[in-house]
């Protein structure tokens, strides 16, 4: 597979492959972002 064929949205299989990878990366990045945001807000007493 190449970048070009990966982003070929003409088939249902390709659309779902992209969707699955986007869901995985999006949820993981979203959770990390949420933890990091709260980490910055809950400033530690030693910082």
């Amino acid at each position: 597979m190449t970048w070009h064929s990966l982003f070929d949205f003409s088939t249902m299989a390709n659309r779902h492959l992209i969707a699955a990878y986007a869901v995985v990366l999006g949820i993981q990045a979203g959770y990390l972002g949420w933890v990091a945001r709260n980490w910055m807000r809950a400033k530690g007493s030693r910082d």
Partner: protein
Amino acid sequence: MEQRTPSLRSVAWLWFGIAVAILIIGFRQAIFLTPTDAAQGDVGRIFYYHVPIAMLSLLFPYLNFAASLLYLYWRMRDPLKALAADAFALASAEVTVVYATITLLSGMIWGRVAWGIWWTWDARLTSMLLLWLLYVSYLMLRNFSPTGQSHTLAAVLSIFAAVDVPIVYMSIRWWRTQHPAPVFGGGPNAGMDKSMLPAFFWNLAGWAVWGIFILLFRFALERRRQINEQEAALHAIEASLEIPQ
């Protein structure tokens, strides 16, 4: 203590960098280097994310289980240790929900192409949904219960929730329904082609290293919150003692 924080931060950044590097290798292997599955076509590449994450979603509940047991053991004997165990239980429950959510969604996206349906009440899918619901209810109990015993109740719930983990694992061995048969340890016809192994193991390693990173980061956040709350309570007590009678 002053020197410990910067070095811990460096280790955390290094760990994060390693996780991202392994995941990039895993992505490259899964999408570009592994040959297309003869039976499923390119949609079979979902397997390289779905299966490692599904396997890890059955490991994090045991961390929650162990931390909950330690919390229940220490809560009367050593409250400070109990607080740390409670923070770890919360972090592991959240990571379990993240991994289980991804497992369910990526499986549904694959199922729509492979089976023609988004969902079926198959033994594996149903037991996995039940696992997700149990850990979501664990988090909701902690967040919304008005009683002062919510952490203890949540710890007890987590012990019951952990019972579902072996059921999820064994479901595709006990009941042969719609979900594909186990890839590993599923009998003489199980296993995968050698060409698929690098993509699978790089992604398994990558999501494991990533999972440990976010678990410890969430644990550190909860510990920071706990310490801030303790210091705020201490200041409030000190301030009340300074009020002239």
